């Protein structure tokens, strides 16, 4: 048994197991921690498949940045209560699981028909395709063939950052002239009626 087979059979059950555990976790923080485990196993798969650059990016961006953001929001909102199990739509859960199993069977059948369970990748991937290192080879493809999409993603990130700022800000109304004058008044800005009510 070759090394990559051992790695696959060790990490594939961990990957699927942690995903299922995420599904059944009623506490959002525990679900997030299981998702981090799943992201790490995916990073290992990337390494086995000859993508060490994506392995690093997966750990830094997903397991690092994105999941920290998730945990930060969970802590910020204080959503540590267990969620309710009331079904609004009758029979939604069994139907969803049944349809999910149908989808899985369909995709596995498509993989069997389209790729086949015996097809293996070319043995010379690391010497020919990843010539001079995976990051260098990836940069050659990215900056020659996909340079314009790469620039467009930078615009996307700026738009997303601005959108987050606009969405998450607290809306405070600008004070009108009358309100500001009322605050500066010596009696604390009482109206006529309030002043009469004071004994």
């Amino acid at each position, binding site marked *: 048994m*070759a090394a990559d087979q051992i790695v*696959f059979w060790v990490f594939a059950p961990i990957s699927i197991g942690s995903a299922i555990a995420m599904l059944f976790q009623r506490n959002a923080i525990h679900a*997030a921690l299981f998702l981090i485990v799943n992201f790490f196993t995916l990073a290992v798969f990337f390494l086995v498949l000859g993508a060490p650059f994506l392995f690093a990016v997966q750990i830094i961006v997903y397991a690092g940045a994105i999941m920290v953001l998730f945990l930060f929001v969970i802590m910020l909102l204080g959503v540590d209560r267990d969620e309710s199990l009331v079904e609004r739509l009758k029979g939604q859960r069994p139907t969803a699981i049944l349809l999910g199993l149908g989808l899985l069977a369909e995709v596995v059948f498509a993989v069997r028909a389209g*790729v086949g369970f*015996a097809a*293996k990748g070319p043995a010379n991937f690391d010497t020919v395709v990843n010539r001079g290192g995976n990051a260098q080879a990836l940069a050659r493809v990215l900056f020659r063939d996909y340079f314009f999409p790469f620039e467009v993603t930078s615009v996307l990130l700026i738009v997303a950052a601005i959108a987050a700022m606009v969405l998450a800000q607290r809306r405070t109304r600008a004070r009108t002239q009358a309100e500001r004058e009322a605050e500066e008044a010596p009696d604390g800005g009482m109206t006529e009626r309030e002043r009469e009510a004071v004994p």
Partner: protein
Amino acid sequence: MNTPIAYFLVVSAALFTIGTVGVLVRKNALVIFMSVELQLNAVNLALVAFSRMHGNLTGQVLAFFSMVVAAAEVVVGLAIIVAIYRRRASANVDDVNLLKW
């Protein structure tokens, strides 16, 4: 590399299915969002596996772009969840029914 590529694709399909069921079954908006992340990652795994199978790095570049889009999507989505939570004091998707007819 002795592992058939199809094994990775089957793992990817399983993760995608788990993510789909998570979106359909869970009620907490944050957990639904995590399930969407799981789906995106499953597709990334499929892209990298296909890249390996065809001996072509375009699949890895596409997975890289999908990570960037996922990061942008997380930022905006979490901001929306925070905004909804401020208004409704709940992260349950059943409580957000203002547009429901």
